[in-house]
């Protein structure tokens, strides 16, 4: 899932400068799971902004809404009546959701309420860790199911550097060394032979380094004719 964290309230308030009717829009998907932008968090944010408005006599009008997934137009378009009433949208979704809202409502300014961080998973309640490097060329079968791109601070591919000590990374005593974890995993799986292979230089073309990515699944793409038929039915 995508993990994000709320921006500091002071920063959000500062970024809302110049706006008075604000629609706070959350998402029930990833950001709800990482307790940053779900319905509950939207409610608290809206109330905080109303309190701010009351104290400072700003006369703000704050509306709230939460959609199933803010990255999909089918749901976001349903917000049209609410967006029409507002002069800006404070998106509590990830950067993808915020951009989707802006693209679908190009005349209403969208302000991000979150700092979107990474692709990861919950470790325990209240803690979420980065897991996937999004490199576009997955090698988890070679690394005992642990991503060296995301979880090694140097994205090394041929084993730990000289700074790995007691299973921890040199950058921080609380950060596990991914390669130590890989070693333990491969050992357990009886596949330490995989660590003897020299993995050659990686192609970064399928990663973010190759430019913004677009994935197409041909069997799902609608032809022009199909699009017309669909529109006709709608």
């Amino acid at each position: 899932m995508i993990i994000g964290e709320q921006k500091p309230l002071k920063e959000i308030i500062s970024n809302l400068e110049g706006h008075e009717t604000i629609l706070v829009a959350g998402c029930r998907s990833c950001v709800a799971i990482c307790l940053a932008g779900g319905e509950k968090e939207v409610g608290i944010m809206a109330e905080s902004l109303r309190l701010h408005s009351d104290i400072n006599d700003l006369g703000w009008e704050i509306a709230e809404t939460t959609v199933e997934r803010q990255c999909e137009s089918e749901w976001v378009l349903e917000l049209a009546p609410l967006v029409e009433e507002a002069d800006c949208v404070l998106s509590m979704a990830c950067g993808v959701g915020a951009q989707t809202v802006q693209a679908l409502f190009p005349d209403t300014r969208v302000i991000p309420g979150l700092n979107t961080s990474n692709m990861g998973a919950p470790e325990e309640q209240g803690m979420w860790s980065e897991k996937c490097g999004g490199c576009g060329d997955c090698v988890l079968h070679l690394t005992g199911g642990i991503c060296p791109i995301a979880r090694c601070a140097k994205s090394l591919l041929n084993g730990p550097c000289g700074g790995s000590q007691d299973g921890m990374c040199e950058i921080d005593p609380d950060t596990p060394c991914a390669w130590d974890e890989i070693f333990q995993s491969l050992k357990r799986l009886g596949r330490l032979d995989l660590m003897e292979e020299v993995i050659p230089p990686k192609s970064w073309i399928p990663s973010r380094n190759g430019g913004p990515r677009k994935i197409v699944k041909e069997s799902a793409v609608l032809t022009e004719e199909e699009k017309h038929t669909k529109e006709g039915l709608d």
Partner: protein
Amino acid sequence: MKAGSNIEKLFDRGEFVVTGEIGPPMSSDASPVREHARFLKGYADAFNLTDNQTAIVRMSSLASAVVCLEEGVEPVMQMTCRDRNRIAMQSDLLGASALGVRNLLCIAGDHQTFGNQRESKNVYDLDSIQQLMVLSRMRDEGKVWGDNDLDEAPKVYLGAAANPFADPFEFRVTRLAKKVKAGADFIQTQAIFDMDRFERWMAEVTSRGLHERTHIMAGLVPLKSVGAARYMKNRVSGMIVPDQLVDRMKAAEDPKEEGIRICVEQIEHLLTIEGVHGVHIMPVAWEKKLPEIVERAGLLPRPTP
């Protein structure tokens, strides 16, 4: 001969090689490098010029290496994977070779959060093993990575680092084997304080015959004070300093003399270990002590290559 560097010639002849280290200055004035080179000339066979060590911006290793050459001293250039992608690495090797640099040490490099540019983006396009693959191919096949021919291949003797004191211990020799397979002609280890662990590592190295395919140089750092010993013990990842050593420094009347004495004892012991083909002495913030160490350890005069 792959490069014809001094240390290559000495290794090939079976000589015990000595390398030192010069840290380039945080300055655009190269005089400190010149002064060190002049002072240290003749006391080691070559000197490493570190590459933005601990991610602190310093004069580049390449430039410092060229300054050494001007002083008639052989440099070992260092290149981390942190700051350069494969394009820059190959390009810098071509430049270094053109200017007469004949030794290059390939290393991953300390993470940028250690230094004074913590907010920078790191590169790590290649890891040090891939770096060895790419650069050895340039030399041996005269091609850049991806097959285009070079008009003239670089001449370089390639080195890599090894750390017998990092974890997991079980993997450390395999990692060395990978570096050798990828093209490491010589190896410099992390500073040795835990001699037992080093010897266990060397035993495995020799049992796998790796000492016949690469030249291993034992790394040493002379201790200046008990504070320095403690710092390296507690605050540097991948370094092991046994308590006895810390206690010895603490009990010493003259800690500096004790530190040198320990270093000399270590060298004398290392000379007896099979597979150790040299020492790499890194007198951190104490470059001027190298001549004394080398002399007391009986390593002078240095052989002519």
